[in-house]
């Protein structure tokens, strides 16, 4: 750990190098408990403080109850406190360079500027990272953060109602499979479920097979799956995970494919097919575990995060779908009146979508062009007071 010293001037730049994979410093304490996190002890009156200490591997180990003097964190070698150089694509500011003295210049035409007019504005060094080109990506900071931090689910939320319908049904079926077979209870099965979901994060894999499952058996109002269906869907899903024999190459390829979303045409075909029945939307989701996996899978597939409070008690699948769909914008009064042709018979009534201002009235009368020209001739502001105060003599007249 290091308290950042304030240097009088920035040192020469660190040379930019090849594009790296973007490693982030994972919060050290995500694995350990908060109390066991390697918390520094900063001076409280020192406002400005950043921890540059990498996470201590000795502390990240699971606690063992055997006391080993050599492996105790206090006695561990302090190698972890030193950060290893990381290749970067950031452009850091270079050191200060002084311009040559005008007297020493050979150029006879050179004349030093006496005013700031016409000089290029370079801004202060504090705005260095406001410029997109210094982040190493054309999209600047936004693109860097999006790549570095990542997101669980697509960056852009799915908004198309047809696509949402298909993806939500898939999520519900998969959630019921996981909840029914009590998968994800032990750490091993949980890891397996996470792996399967990660490999099918785009929702494309065997979509037709999974969506065709009936989640509302006759005579039931609660969303359930038959046992045979559960096994079948789980087997289908597990097929998405490449076997170890297939090698890392295929895995990489799959991971690249994850970026593509379900094609809209494909979803429309599914929904418009005669086998697509809307009865499943009436299914009630009651199982809390199934709800958790449904929410997680919906977030992964569509990018929508559903708050816990929306899923308390019995919630129908249709209600969940409705939460994700953006409500239609209510029409404006002017649009409604225009559509109805409400005042068409009244020649003296007109409807405007916004307030009619004095300028609008001038424009209707054809005065506005003349007013503008006259104001421009007198170099007066066309709109507003142009910084001039109001008539202060008015106060004298009014006796205030």
């Amino acid at each position: 750990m290091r308290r950042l010293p304030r240097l009088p001037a920035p040192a020469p730049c660190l040379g930019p190098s090849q594009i790296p994979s973007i490693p982030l410093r994972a919060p050290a304490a995500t694995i350990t408990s908060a109390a066991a996190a390697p918390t520094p002890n900063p001076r409280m009156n020192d406002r400005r403080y950043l921890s540059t200490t990498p996470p201590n591997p000795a502390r990240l180990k699971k606690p063992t109850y055997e006391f080993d003097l050599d492996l105790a964190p206090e006695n561990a070698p302090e190698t972890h406190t030193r950060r290893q150089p990381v290749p970067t694509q950031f452009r850091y500011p270079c050191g200060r360079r002084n311009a040559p003295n005008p007297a020493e210049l050979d150029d006879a035409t050179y004349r030093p500027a006496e005013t700031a007019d016409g000089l290029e504005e370079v801004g202060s060094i504090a705005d260095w990272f406001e410029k997109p080109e210094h982040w190493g990506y054309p999209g600047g900071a936004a693109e860097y953060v999006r790549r570095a931090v990542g997101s669980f689910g697509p960056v852009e939320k799915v908004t198309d109602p047809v696509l949402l319908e298909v993806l939500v049904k898939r999520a519900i079926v998969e959630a019921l499979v996981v909840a029914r077979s009590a998968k994800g209870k032990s750490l091993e099965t949980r890891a397996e479920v996470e792996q399967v979901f990660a490999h099918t994060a785009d929702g494309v894999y065997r979509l037709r097979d999974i969506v065709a499952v009936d989640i509302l058996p006759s005579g039931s109002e609660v969303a359930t799956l038959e046992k045979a269906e559960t096994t079948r869907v789980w087997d289908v899903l597990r097929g998405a995970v490449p076997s170890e024999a297939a090698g890392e190459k295929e895995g990489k390829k799959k991971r690249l494919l994850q970026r593509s979303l379900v094609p809209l045409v494909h979803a429309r075909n599914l929904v418009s097919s005669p086998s697509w029945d809307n009865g499943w939307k009436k299914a009630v989701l009651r199982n809390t575990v199934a709800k958790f996996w449904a929410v997680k899978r919906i977030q992964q597939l569509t990018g929508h995060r559903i708050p816990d409070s929306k899923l308390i008690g019995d919630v129908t699948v249709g209600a969940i779908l409705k939460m994700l769909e953006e409500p239609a914008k209510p029409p404006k009064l002017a649009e409604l009146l225009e559509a109805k042709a409400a005042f068409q018979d009244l020649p003296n009534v007109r409807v405007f979508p916004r307030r009619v201002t004095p300028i609008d009235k001038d424009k209707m009368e054809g005065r506005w062009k003349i007013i503008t020209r006259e104001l421009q001739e007198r170099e007066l502001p066309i709109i507003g007071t142009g910084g001039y105060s109001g008539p202060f003599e008015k106060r004298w007249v009014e006796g205030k």
Partner: protein
Amino acid sequence: MAGKGVKCLSEALRGLSLGAQPCRTTPARQAAMGCIRSMATAVEGKPSNITRSVDEVYTPLTTVPVTIHSFPTLEPRSLEAWSTKHLYLPLRRDILHLAVVYEGDKTRQGTASSKTRWEVAGSHRKMRPQKGLGHARLGTRQSPLMRHGGKTFGPKPRDFSTKLNRKVYDLAWRTALSYRYRRGELIVTEDGLDLPLPDEFLYAASKGVLGREVEDGFVSKYLAELLAGLQWGREYGRTTFITGDRRPNLFTGMEVGGENGRALELDEVDVKDLLETGRIVIERSALREMIKTHSSDLVQRVQVPGLRTKPQLGTAIVQ
């Protein structure tokens, strides 16, 4: 015979119950319905069915789910069940108002002070003769009537704090949290909530080659973009992060980029802080500690064997 009598009585009582009555509409309501005109903002819907038959078993909601997310990807990682008395209390604006006023009073500095005529320094010589000058009578220059004289009823340092019953204050804490929970503005993260700064920047910072201005500029921009991506930034009402102890990168980041939110340690949080900004992001252990320390009103003095004296803190459903 006696059995028949009891049966008759129970039948009669069932007939009187609310559930047995087919429809309960008051004439006044019906009369009013006739002259209601349609308004654009009117919500049309059936009135909720609040009547309940005696045959139906009343099973009130006892727990609500709380998802624990990872930060900053917000992936749901685990699920806990929390008592409705902890995180699903009804909104009581009056209690929240009491708590906020109580905290405001308590945090008043109360150091305003002015001098009375007895404290103003200077000679106590009579300013002018009692009589003969045509002026009013005047004593010393410390008189409140004089410029630079003492202040008659001026402020003196005092304690402005007011009192509030501990149980009411604790109820206010959980009411504030419940309010956030109901609105979906309480995001619980895994322990160790911190701002993940990139390794390459931290390396440069550890070498000290950037200088304060550039470092601050980087952290500020990085944080702004991170929060904008989550829709948690300035346009979305800012975000309050609450952690168990001080996390250097998160807290420094929030001080540098304060327009997007704030970070607070658990000890610094007040009810008012829970009600400000667009959302509360709190780590799991901090929420647990917060509710644990503010549940004095839930302890029952009457102990029934087999029943808990107070609701259990969150229990894991999915780990």
